[in-house]
């Protein structure tokens, strides 16, 4: 158990900057998801913390002291790799035992430790098998057991569910938080799946092009993404984005997108006339009667059932694509049908078109210019 901080860390490979001035602070025992598209530098970040690579600039602090000069074997981290990285010439037992062997526990201590974690992860029946005789799910659990067995201070999980099938991935996703809680380690969980990032991380660090684009709770990031890029990375289907500008409407401000006038929540008066990108998540687009304020006429181009929801691809009269996602079985518009949809004003996110950064509505209670976000 330890706190972990990255302080202005920069990592370059040749002329390419893979991590650019990354600062991150993780509390003792916290689970943080590191999420981002492939190539964003997520794995490199873990490698730096594990000591497999050294940053060009910045410090990595464990419990307040810089560990950059500490050898990997002395950092007391556990790590599970995306490709499992099991030792192919050792049995599952010896794989899991290796951190205990390094700590020179006696034979009984090793036996106890391995058996305990193996039972917890339900792989005690395959401990004698070589890695190549294990199923993918068992390999993944063995790798996890090896990372956890010595109760490391810091646990680094590099997309551990990537290479297991959908069903197992779901089971493990539900099981992992409980398991991790038991060990109390500080956890960094790297993933490319926004669902995993939201489900597992108390906070999420969104990494894009080697920079932390946003660091916050799942609610903050999903509802109030820092910029367009972050907004696009969450949700299935992704957020609907339209370019337009803000103007005064019949009863408050609206976003004018082509011929559409989408009412906005209060608080955007100060940005009248600004060119913006507006985002609205598919689950916040609902059906409405014609004539409802802000209703947009559209035709259903395709029905795309998604789990327990019905996703519809709508095409507006000026040819824009718009996705809705509603609970299946509710009021339905079939393929080819025409109707009206309306976006929930409170759920519309407004971004500055030039910078891509979110513009927060200014609530009446915080009118002071000093508190204004994104001046």
């Amino acid at each position, binding site marked *: 158990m330890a706190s972990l901080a990255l302080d202005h860390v920069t990592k370059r490979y040749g002329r390419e900057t893979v991590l650019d001035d990354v600062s991150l602070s993780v509390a003792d025992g916290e689970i943080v998801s590191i999420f981002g598209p492939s190539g964003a530098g997520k794995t490199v970040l873990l*490698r730096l913390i*594990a*000591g*497999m690579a050294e940053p060009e600039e910045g410090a990595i602090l464990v419990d307040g002291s810089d560990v950059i000069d500490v*050898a*990997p*074997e*002395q*950092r*007391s*981290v*556990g*790590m599970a*790799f995306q*490709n499992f*990285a*099991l*030792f*192919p*010439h050792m049995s599952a037992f010896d794989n899991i035992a*290796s*951190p205990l*062997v*390094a*700590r020179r526990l006696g034979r009984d201590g090793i036996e106890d430790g391995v058996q305990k974690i193996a039972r917890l992860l339900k792989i005690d029946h395959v401990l004698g098998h070589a*890695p*190549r005789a294990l199923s993918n799910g068992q390999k993944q659990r063995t790798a996890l057991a*090896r990372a956890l067995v*010595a109760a490391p201070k810091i646990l680094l999980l590099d997309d551990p569910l990537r*290479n297991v099938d959908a069903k197992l991935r779901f089971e493990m996703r539900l099981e992992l938080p409980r398991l991790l809680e038991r060990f109390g380690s500080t956890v960094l969980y790297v993933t490319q799946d926004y669902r995993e990032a939201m489900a597992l991380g108390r906070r999420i660090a969104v990494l894009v092009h080697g920079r932390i684009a946003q660091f916050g709770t799942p609610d903050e990031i999903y509802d109030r993404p820092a910029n367009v890029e972050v907004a696009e990375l969450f949700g299935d289907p992704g957020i609907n984005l339209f370019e337009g500008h803000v103007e005064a409407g019949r009863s408050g401000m609206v976003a004018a997108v082509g011929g559409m006038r989408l009412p906005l929540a209060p608080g955007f008066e100060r940005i009248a006339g600004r060119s913006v990108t507006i985002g609205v998540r598919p689950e916040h687009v609902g059906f409405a009667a014609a004539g409802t304020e802000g209703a947009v006429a559209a035709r259903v181009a395709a029905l795309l059932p998604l789990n327990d929801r019905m996703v519809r691809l709508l095409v507006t009269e000026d040819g824009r694509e718009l996705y809705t996602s509603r609970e299946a079985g509710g009021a339905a518009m079939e393929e080819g049908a025409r109707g009206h949809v309306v976006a929930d004003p409170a759920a519309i996110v407004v971004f500055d078109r030039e910078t891509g950064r979110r513009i927060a509505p200014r609530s009446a209670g915080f009118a002071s210019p000093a508190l204004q976000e994104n001046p």
Partner: protein
Amino acid sequence: MHHTSTGERILRGVLISLALIFFLFPIFWILLMSFQTNAQILRIPPSIVFTPTLDNYVSLITGELKTASGVLKLAFMQNLLNSLILSVASVALSLVLAVPAAYAFARYKFRFSEDIAFTLLSFKFAPPLLVLLPLTIYFQQIGLANTYVGLIWVYQLITLPLILWIVRGYFEDISPDIEHAYRIAGHSWLRSFLKISVPLAMPGIAAAALLSFIFAWNNFVFALVLASADKQPVTVGALAFVTASGIQYGQIAAAVVISIAPTLALALFAQRYLVEGLSLGAVKG
């Protein structure tokens, strides 16, 4: 999906038999020759019907060759021992030097690493004599000529680059993550090298050791120039069978059979590791 007709199967059998006969016939013939007297060997036309004799082997082992012009002393057993000492020691020394070096070349990209690795290989391009002539003089001056140490040193030119280049490829194929996982588990660099990298590259190391042993064993020129009678390996020693009273084909054949034996034994022994290596390749994914 792929249907094999009977005709196809027969044709394949015939082709394989032809290839086998082509490659194995010389060995088979040598084996027959080693049990014949010179007179039987030189018969025209040759025949495979003869009364086998162990004379050739006896004379090799006792070191006495009775020829028409008298009894000749043979140092074959000494030659065999020399071959064994030179080959084993050369390969052993090369392994100790080249395996860590191969690891370094595989894992660390340092300045001139490619150039150094290439230079090591380039010794194989030049004719051996180019290296040997200047060496002979130096070796005589510093007292290394006609010593095992000197010969083993020179043999490194044969064995070291070969092992380095083969083993390097095997190290490159091991996922660095596996080594990282072992170090993160709390093991030092050296332990990770000895417990993870070397065992996983073992098939490559075995193959490289076997190949370089064969090259060392069959070397002729280095030993011819740098060794005198008591340090000569079998390849050079066989020259002694070309005697004043003719070429002793029977003894040569017997000598060949005996000198193939260690290589063959080693190959059979190493095969286990080679095959194991093939199945270890299935680890990824």
